[in-house]
């Protein structure tokens, strides 16, 4: 049967043309209904239809007298009308026509017998169907010519209706698209405005994007941004039907979002039920019909997915997909913006935190100029917490204040130096004491933009003080080494302590009894301070003996607060003492002296300061002990010298008395004078505590016994010689001079003696001493062995027996040699 259906029915071009009118399955419309009414009346038939022939059925847009709105093609007669587009198809008796004899509508209900159809032909010649009239009895005469012509006219009216209808429909569709585009642009613009205006956190920005996208695409019932975090997607800014899923984390696996991330391309999911990326079992749970997804990109990477979904299938189209991509772009911008802002905030927080935590004090300033443009002052614009800590002025008094207001008299030097930094642009490094608090600061001032400059500095008082104390101790060490009296040492110590600790008075006092009184030696005082030298009883000044008795320092930071001194505070203050330290100097477990420091203002004596004081006291103590030992040594030396000389006088006296009976007095006197010569050497030696003697002094002291020194020409390097050498040299010169006086040059008025010595270097350095007599009588070698004097001369220096004696007619010439090592004392 189907073979009777003309092939034209399924012509794709024709079917496409039919689709273009979007007429099938639409409700009845009066325009078409009117036409079938007219057709019935025109052709006097009970049935008239506007029949549209689709690929597998015919559908009636308007009908009169026919119960069905459509039939299959087997039941279609109109299909045959397609074959003759220009003419009305008239079949007088359908039972007789081979094309229709077997038609179910002919063979069965409603037993149609007559058919006439005018083709519904488009301008392009495509036949969509027909306007047909049908009767239940055959009409052998068919239609009259007029009827046929009129039916064609009505058929053209149907086409006009269809064209009109399509035009209206197209216009409405166009309007809908425009409205939708407008709406979308509106939503996008609003979203972007919201993003620009929002300074909130990332979620606020994402919320704006999702809600904007949902507004732009009303079909969406749920929206979310799934941000990629590692291997998971996190639901952010979830709204609508997805709101409950906010915060959900799903693995990046087997989902449309995953596909979108992986492909980096927008994805339109028209039907979740058949979508290859959606898990079937989730479709119902998710109430997912269709969705659009767009990747949020940054560069080539994907940060996440913007997704809108609807419980209905096919809720979105390609336009939605393109639009969503725009929103995804906004999301990219928002994420970038949020990241940038977060970084700025983080950096700001970082720098601010650094600034606040910095140990170094920082101040931001601006110079103030007068009308002539000269810098006259500066204003502090900002400081960090360290500043307030280090300078000791609270921030609220500093920020906005001028230097001259804050620092008064000391401001000018800082204004000058900081002003120089601003004028020259050269940074200035400084280490300077800040007079208002006495602290030392080390830092750098540097120019910023315009008239502003920064200063960063650190309180280095501890270091400077420590250096000052170290320098003071070195200086004290030098002074103590050179000073020779206890008073000078204690005064030097007092001055160093006073200056180094910035005290107003310092001194040294000897302690009497069991720390009953102190006798303060002349003390060091700051300008304007009176001395407290003299004796003071401890008990007159409070209950302050206990610590000193135990050998511990008496430390009082404030006499008006310390329980030991508060009762006698007025007395202390009368001496300009508000704070004090008595550092004990101990000897054999007893406090024998104290180092005293006073300050006119209360002050906290630091551990370092007390340690310094202890150190000074110890050093002075050692120095004093050394001086005492030296003084004692000197006393002993003098005593020894005195006893020695007295004893030598007694020896002389005994000899003289013993030899009273000897008529020859010369040997007695010779003995006496030898003792005297020996003693002269001792005199010279004693000047250096018997450790050494100056060679020239030894010579002069012996020779002067015999004759005026102008009889002698003494020439040689002055050496420190050993005690033994001094004694040997004394006795030798004494005998030579005695002989010269008796027989040689000194016996004549014009005679002279030239004494010269030199050292000879070599493997064994040697001292060579020459004794040359001039201007005396001719001399001859003494006969025989000679007396004790001759023996002494022949023994030479240090008993070396290296004595070359030459009795020239013009005078004695003698040369004596001795190892320099035995003569000389290495000066240490």
């Amino acid at each position, binding site marked *: 049967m189907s073979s009777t259906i003309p092939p034209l029915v399924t012509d794709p071009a024709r079917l496409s043309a039919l689709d273009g009118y979007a007429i099938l399955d639409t409700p009845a419309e009066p325009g078409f209904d009117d036409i079938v009414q007219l057709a019935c009346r025109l052709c006097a038939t009970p049935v008239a239809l506007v029949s549209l022939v689709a690929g597998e059925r015919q559908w009636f847009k308007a009908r009169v007298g026919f119960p069905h709105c459509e039939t299959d093609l087997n039941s279609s007669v109109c299909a045959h009308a397609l074959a003759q587009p220009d003419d009305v198809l008239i079949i007088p008796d359908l039972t007789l026509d081979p094309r229709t004899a077997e038609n179910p509508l002919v063979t069965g209900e409603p037993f149609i017998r007559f058919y006439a159809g005018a083709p519904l032909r488009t301008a392009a010649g495509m036949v969509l169907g027909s306007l047909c009239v049908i009767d239940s009895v055959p009409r052998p005469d068919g239609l009259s010519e007029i009827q046929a012509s009129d039916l064609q006219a009505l058929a053209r009216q149907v086409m006009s209706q269809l064209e009109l209808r399509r035009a209206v429909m197209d216009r409405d569709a166009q309007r809908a698209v425009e409205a939708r585009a407008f709406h979308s642009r509106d939503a996008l613009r609003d979203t972007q405005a919201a993003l620009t205006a929002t300074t909130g956190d990332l979620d606020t920005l994402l919320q704006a994007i999702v809600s904007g996208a949902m507004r732009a695409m009303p079909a969406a019932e749920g929206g979310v941004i799934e941000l990629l975090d590692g291997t998971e997607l996190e639901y952010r800014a979830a709204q609508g039907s997805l709101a409950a899923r906010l915060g959900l984390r799903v693995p990046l696996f087997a989902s449309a979002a995953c596909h979108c991330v992986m492909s980096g391309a927008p994805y339109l999911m028209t039907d979740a039920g058949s979508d290859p990326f959606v898990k079937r079992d989730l479709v119902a749970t998710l109430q997912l019909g269709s969705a659009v997804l767009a990747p949020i990109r940054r560069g080539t990477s994907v940060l996440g997915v913007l997704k809108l979904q609807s419980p209905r299938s096919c809720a979105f189209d390609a336009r939605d997909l393109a639009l969503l991509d725009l929103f995804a772009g906004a999301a990219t911008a928002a994420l970038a913006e949020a990241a940038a802002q977060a970084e700025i905030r983080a950096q700001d927080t970082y720098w601010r935190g650094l600034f606040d935590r910095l140990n170094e004090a920082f101040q931001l300033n601006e110079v103030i100029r007068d009308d002539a443009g000269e810098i006259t002052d500066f204003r502090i614009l900002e400081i960090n917490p360290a500043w307030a800590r280090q300078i000791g002025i609270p921030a609220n008094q500093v920020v906005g204040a001028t230097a001259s207001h804050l620092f008064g008299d000391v401001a000018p030097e800082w204004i000058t130096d900081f002003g120089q930094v601003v004028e020259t642009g050269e940074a200035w490094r400084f280490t300077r004491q800040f007079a208002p608090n006495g602290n030392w600061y080390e830092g750098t001032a540097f120019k910023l933009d315009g008239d502003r400059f920064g200063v960063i500095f650190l309180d280095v008082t501890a270091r400077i003080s420590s250096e000052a104390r170290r320098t003071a101790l070195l200086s004290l060490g030098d002074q103590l080494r050179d000073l020779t009296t206890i008073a000078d040492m204690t005064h030097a110590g007092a001055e160093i302590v006073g200056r180094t600790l910035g005290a107003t008075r310092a001194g040294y006092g000897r302690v009497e009894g069991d720390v009953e009184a102190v006798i303060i030696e002349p003390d060091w005082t700051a300008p304007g301070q009176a001395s407290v030298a003299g004796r003071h009883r401890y008990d007159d000044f409070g209950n302050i003996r206990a610590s000193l008795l135990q050998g511990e320092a008496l430390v009082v930071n404030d006499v008006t607060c310390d329980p030991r001194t508060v009762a006698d505070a007025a007395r202390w203050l009368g001496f300009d003492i508000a704070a004090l330290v008595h550092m004990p100097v101990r000897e054999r477990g007893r406090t024998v002296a104290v180092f005293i420091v006073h300050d006119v203002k209360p002050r906290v004596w630091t551990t370092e300061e007390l340690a310094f004081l202890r150190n000074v006291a110890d050093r002075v103590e050692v120095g004093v002990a050394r001086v005492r030992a030296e003084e004692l040594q000197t006393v002993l030396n*003098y005593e020894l*010298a*005195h*006893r*020695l*000389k*007295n004893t*030598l*006088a*007694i*020896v*002389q*006296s*005994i000899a*003289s*008395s013993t030899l009273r009976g000897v008529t020859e007095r010369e040997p007695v*006197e010779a003995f*006496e*004078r030898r*003792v*005297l010569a020996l*003693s002269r050497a001792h005199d010279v030696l004693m000047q250096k505590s018997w450790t050494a003697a100056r060679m020239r002094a030894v010579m002069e002291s012996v020779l002067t*016994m015999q004759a005026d020194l102008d009889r002698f020409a003494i020439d040689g390097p002055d050496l420190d010689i050993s005690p033994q050498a001094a004694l040997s040299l004394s006795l030798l010169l004494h005998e030579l001079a005695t002989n010269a006086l008796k027989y040689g040059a000194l016996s004549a008025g014009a005679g002279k003696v030239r004494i010269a010595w030199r050292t000879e270097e070599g493997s064994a350095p040697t001292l060579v001493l020459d004794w040359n007599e001039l201007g005396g009588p001719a001399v001859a070698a003494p006969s025989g062995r000679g007396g004790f004097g001759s023996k002494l001369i022949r023994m030479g220096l240090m008993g070396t027996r290296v004595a070359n004696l030459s009795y020239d007619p013009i005078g004695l010439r003698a040369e004596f040699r001795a190892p320099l090592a035995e003569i000389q004392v290495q000066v240490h």
Partner: protein
Amino acid sequence: MAQSKVPAPTQVLCVEDDPILMLAMIEFVENAGCEAVEATSVAEAIGILETRTDIRTVFTDLDMRGSTAGMRLAVAIRDRWPPIELVMISSQPWDASQIPARGVVLGKPFDRRKIEATIRRFAV
């Protein structure tokens, strides 16, 4: 060393608490052509000076017991008996500014020549 003859030898008061040294001092005085008067303490010397008017020279040791006794004696003599000449011997260094006017100090051990010459000079 011209020696003049005098009818009565010059009286020299020797003050010394050490008997052996006293022997030597007397010898020096006598060798100088003078006559020695002995005193073994400062008190005794003052007593003699208060009772005798013929003492021309006092020859004293400055190193007697009590350390400064000799010097005090010398100062007292210059104060009370200004004409008397002073010859002193000492084993210790002395401060020239503290020596009474015209006084001569000579060190120990003895330089016989100088001591005798000085006593002789004052005796003239």
